[in-house]
């Protein structure tokens, strides 16, 4: 009876220890994440609104995070136009990566966080970008 009670306590202790370790890990990860997001003060782009009327968003700056779906075109003067899948790929928006970011390799399947400005033609022009 005593041996059974001793064993139970040991198990409980182990579990508790594991939980604490797990909680510490998750907490550290969460901390790192929240403290490392570069444009956390910038609002995300409302894709629905953009699809309906991009002109209404002209001049605004938004951030989006998405996966590179395709490269649509490249201009030596203006940069690269890419298709970025957002909202888990349910929507695709075109993003113009300006020549300022020529040093960044952009390939299909890569995920990026874009800081974007809606220009006068409703084009999402990249102000900043970083891999997510």
């Amino acid at each position, binding site marked *: 009876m005593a041996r059974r009670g001793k064993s139970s306590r040991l198990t409980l202790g182990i579990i508790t220890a594991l939980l604490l370790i797990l909680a510490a890990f998750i907490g550290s990860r969460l901390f790192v994440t929240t403290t490392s997001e570069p444009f956390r003060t910038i609002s995300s782009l409302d894709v629905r609104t953009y*699809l309906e009327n*991009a*002109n209404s968003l002209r001049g605004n700056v938004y951030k989006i995070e998405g996966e590179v779906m395709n490269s*649509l075109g490249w201009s030596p003067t203006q940069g690269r136009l890419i298709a970025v899948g957002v909202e888990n790929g349910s929507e695709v928006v*075109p993003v113009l990566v300006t020549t300022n970011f020529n040093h960044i390799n952009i390939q299909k399947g890569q995920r990026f966080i874009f800081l974007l400005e809606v220009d006068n033609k409703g084009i999402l022009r990249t102000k900043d970008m970083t891999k997510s």
Partner: protein
Amino acid sequence: MKRGLVILLATAALAVAQGDVSSEFQNAPQQPARNPPQPAPPQPAPAQPTGGGTPAKSGAQSGSNAGGSSFLGKDVPFFDPGSNIVTWDGKSWNISNNAIFEARFEKYLNAPPAVTSPETEYQAVLQHIMEKLSPGRITPRSTDEAFQLLAKASRYQEDANLCDSIANQVYSAWLSRKNNDRLNAAGKTLEDERKRLEWNARLTAEGNKLESSGSSGKSKEGAANDEQRQQQQLSREMQMQPILTRLAEITALIRANQLKRKVAELQVKIEFQSLIVQHFLQRRFQHALIGTRFYRSIFADGDSQLRVGEDAKNLFAKTSGLPPTMGTIDSLANEIMRDVREGVQAFKFLLEKNELQSATKRLAESFMIGEYLPAVRTLDRVDKRRALSFVQKSNQLISAIEVKDFALAEKLVAELNETAKDFDVSKPMAAIETAKQISAMHIAKARNAAVSGDKETLEAELKAATEIWPRNPALTEVSKMIFSQADVQSRALVDFDQLLSQKNYRQILDDKMRFIAATAMYPEKQGQLRKVLEDMQVIETSIIQAQEIEKRGDYAGAWESAEKAFRNFPDDNKLNQVRANLTTKAADFVHAIRQAEELEQKEQPGSSLSWYLKAQSEYPSSEFARQGVNRLTKQILPDAS
């Protein structure tokens, strides 16, 4: 030859009846008016400047010269018995087939028979006159009785006062004869006077001789008495001279009266002969016979030579080959009357045999010659009506062939062939069949031309067929067919234009055979139809393609195939229906494409490109999406490579 003369005379008589005769013949009866017979004066009449026979000749010549044409035109009429053609004065015609003869003949055929009481009595009077003047029975008394009957005959309407003319002429002749008797009496008186003067002259001459012989013995006293004898001789010669002068005068008077008598008689003869010839040419042969018999009874001197104009004499002389005399006229008139009687008998016989063609010909010949003879006038009306029916149908047949109504002509030929056993169908049927065959050939060519659309040949062949047989029933059928075709064609063309304006190309496709046929002769419309059918081919191909893609479950691809065709042919209902069905099945893709296009039009390339990209993600093979993406990329990055 005699029959030819008869027909010729009858023809001339017809011309006389028509008033075509001018010159001497019409002038001849007027001569009595210019030179009426006058009673012989007791004193010697002035001598006529011309001898016997000369007045008629000179009159004929003067008439011919003055009128510019002779009695029967510029030449003697010529009759060709083979063709029944008479040539006269430069003109030719068929004696039994001309309007005047046909009209007179039909009038005769419709007229009742001349068997009424007055007509019978009239014929009896004429017969009585001829009997009284017949050569075996003629006496001065019978001549007087016949003369009195002339007045009775002239009272009948049928006579037309011809007997009156004969009576007047006979009376004139008698007056002339009476004047001649007076001249004869005067001549006898002059002859007595001449004889008396001759006697006196002879006595005077003989007294002179006696006195000469009585004084010749006394030689001594001879010388003394020479002077006395010379004085006596002179005295006797002076007595003789008036006697001789008077004798010469009397002799001259006798000669003058003889000459005057001869001239007067000749003049009366000429007048009488002219009247007889006129009756003969008028086909009043009974009157001509009466005239000749009166003539012979009045002028019994044996001189029966015709002294009418040269042309009239030639009419008898050149056709009969005999010298023209009163006997010639008499025998010809009798011969003609006999010929007419035989002609009428032949008509009746042929009618009984139902040989109407020959019967009608015989009757026409008899009528043409002996229109006024009793044998012709008394013919039964029922018989004449049968001939009339044949004549009318024959004339109708001739008219039908002349106006090229061969259907009617064929019908008439059949009827005539049925009613007249001897009707010769070969000539009319040959003409009818020939015309029908030629017309049928032209119509067949016209049909072919109509089928091949050769309007020029069609018109030419129809015109030729119409000219040959204007009332050809086949021509009407062909015309109806062509007009019907034209009607169908024009209606089809109207429908085509209407459907074209409505852009109802599917209806045009459904009825394409009709429109292909209708537009065959219109190149412009043919081009429009070709375009429509080609477009419809594209639409049909698109529909089939869309349906095939749909079967694979690729609704977006099927819709895109239908949409591409729809954008070119938005009015096709069937395509619309297919497209509508597919729109519901590929709603997300269709929505993305439409949104993209709408925003592209609103110049929102960012939003538009987003929709195109979304559509492309839905249907990666979408051509619309690919084109839209490329287009907008080029717009955003004009210098993109």
